């Protein structure tokens, strides 16, 4: 089933799936021609792509820095080799030596098989950018993956999982397909849970006029109750007038991962319109790595109108309140050993450096709300991916096995901290994709930890008057 000539592939979206996004797949006999045309368009538009195509000297530094290669030892998962799947085609059609000397200079005709190879390997890259951060030439292979995935999508080759999320975005404003009645029902349930567990009255205002627009990840409505609870408890504690928008109910943005041109912008405008309609002064982002990258780094350039609001991450807000001593916290309520997984998109893709940047802010928070915090190594911007980045969260057997391999390096890092030695450790992974990847992976690798967000731990540590 999801395999093509020995290559593992995620289950593809069907023609009917694609129709929901009004995408007509290109027929097989025209795919090659169309792919070359789109590649030509991409190289004229993106200098980052041309840099990746023309500058690599094959020094190989990226190999041992990629969790996908370390976990699978599949040579095509070496970042430069992955890019080579496109580079050989680029050479063939867009360089003089490739046109004249072909295979002699490593140029190759594009075929349907090559496209299937792209589909397999560009969905084994998690867009974590660790290879980009070590490349002496600054080649960011993530950019190559993004272009490959965009072209594949336009051809009609895209995972069912991603298209399902895309359809949810257009239909109800989030990838999980949670419409407003279910959002309200879930949040009312969590209000009761907070009352039962913490003895405080906390409301979740939805679509109310407010100062702060809080955008949680929609996966939180299914899997991460304490992330929603922690955020609501924090906003209530500081006395904020806040609300959750139901029209734009997604901190993530699958558009970034396969369709930046349309889907990513679609959600941007939903955010813009929600902010206008609810009259907010500030937008605060929930725990989602790839989404935060889309909103922080892409939004200002892609949205159709000038932005009038400050957009900050919830972690930056909480860290500010901790530094200014405005929160009373009892770290002994999180007394288990805890380690922090840095989501790649926070620490490598969103200008997070400096003492008050996102990377250090996460540490300011975790030190204030836990008693036994142990760093894993390497960490911060050198951290390894969870192995599920860019929603490589496929559960068909072949791809699920890959996910186990992709998370091997991370599992080794976590084990080395010793937090799970007695079976009661906490793995703090403040990003929805990381959480969704880790829930099964900590079991597969028998790590002795439970998975939590960072704001989850804040909610538990808050001391109420």
């Amino acid at each position, binding site marked *: 089933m999801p395999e093509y000539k020995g290559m593992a592939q995620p289950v593809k979206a069907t023609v009917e799936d694609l129709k929901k996004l009004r995408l007509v797949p290109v027929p097989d006999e025209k795919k090659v021609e169309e792919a070359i045309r789109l590649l030509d368009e991409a190289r004229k538009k993106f200098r980052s792509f041309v840099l990746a195509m023309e500058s690599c000297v094959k020094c190989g530094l990226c190999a041992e820095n990629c969790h996908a290669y370390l976990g699978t030892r599949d040579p095509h998962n070496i970042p430069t080799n992955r890019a080579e799947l496109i580079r050989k085609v680029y050479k063939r059609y867009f360089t003089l030596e490739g046109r004249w000397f072909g295979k002699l200079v490593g140029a190759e005709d594009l075929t349907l098989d090559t496209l299937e190879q792209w589909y397999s390997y560009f969905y084994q890259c998690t867009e974590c950018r660790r290879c980009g951060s070590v490349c002496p030439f600054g080649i960011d292979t993530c950019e190559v993956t993004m272009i490959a995935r965009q072209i594949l999508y336009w051809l009609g080759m895209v995972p069912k999982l991603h298209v399902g999320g895309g359809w949810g975005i257009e239909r109800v404003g989030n990838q999980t397909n949670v419409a407003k009645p279910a959002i309200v029902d879930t949040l009312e349930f969590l209000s009761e849970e907070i009352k039962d567990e913490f003895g405080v009255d906390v409301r979740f205002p939805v679509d109310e006029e407010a100062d702060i627009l809080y955008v949680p990840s929609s996966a939180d409505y299914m*899997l991460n109750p304490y992330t929603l609870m922690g955020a609501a408890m924090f906003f209530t504690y500081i006395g904020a007038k806040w609300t959750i928008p139901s029209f734009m109910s997604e901190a993530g943005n699958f558009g970034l991962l396969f369709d930046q041109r349309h889907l990513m912008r679609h959600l941007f405008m939903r955010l813009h319109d929600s902010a206008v309609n609810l009259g907010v002064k500030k937008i605060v982002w929930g725990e989602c790595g790839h989404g935060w990258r889309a909103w922080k780094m892409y939004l200002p350039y892609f949205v159709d109108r000038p932005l009038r609001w400050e957009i900050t991450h919830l972690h930056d807000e909480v860290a500010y309140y901790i530094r200014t001593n405005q929160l009373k916290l009892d770290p002994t309520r999180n007394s288990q050993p805890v380690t922090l997984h840095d989501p790649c998109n926070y620490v490598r893709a969103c200008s997070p450096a400096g003492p008050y940047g996102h990377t250090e802010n996460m540490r300011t928070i975790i030190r204030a709300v836990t008693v036994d915090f142990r760093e894993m190594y390497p960490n911060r911007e050198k951290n390894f991916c969870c192995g599920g980045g860019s929603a490589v969260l496929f*559960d*068909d057997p072949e791809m699920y096995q890959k996910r186990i391999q992709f998370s091997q390096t991370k599992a080794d890092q976590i084990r080395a901290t010793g937090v799970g030695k007695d079976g009661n450790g906490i793995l703090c992974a403040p990003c*929805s994709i990381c959480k969704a990847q880790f829930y099964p992976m900590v079991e597969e690798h028998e790590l002795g930890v439970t998975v939590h967000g960072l704001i989850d731990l804040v909610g538990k540590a808050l001391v109420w008057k």
Partner: protein
Amino acid sequence: MASINVNGVEIEIDEDGFIQDPDKWNEDVAKFLAKGEGVEEMGDDHWKVVNYLRDYYLKFQIAPMIRKLCKETGFSLKYIYELFPSGPAKGACKIAGLPKPTGCV
């Protein structure tokens, strides 16, 4: 598209075995799907989970938060995994005729 035949009725399923038209679901369909998820016999506790998921879905067009499922059925997540070895989302939801979960789950 693939399909299953339950009591002479053809029902379309996707690549992962989730039925495509939730209206075609009935208890016999559930029993049929259960066998593919490692549930040989649907006992009372299985039905309690499946019926809760089904009712919630008919009302809200989505599965409930897992914590809510546990609370409302009175079952721990561990016990739900014992009932449905492939888990609440991909096992129990499939048997209850819900569509496959999507997004970061």
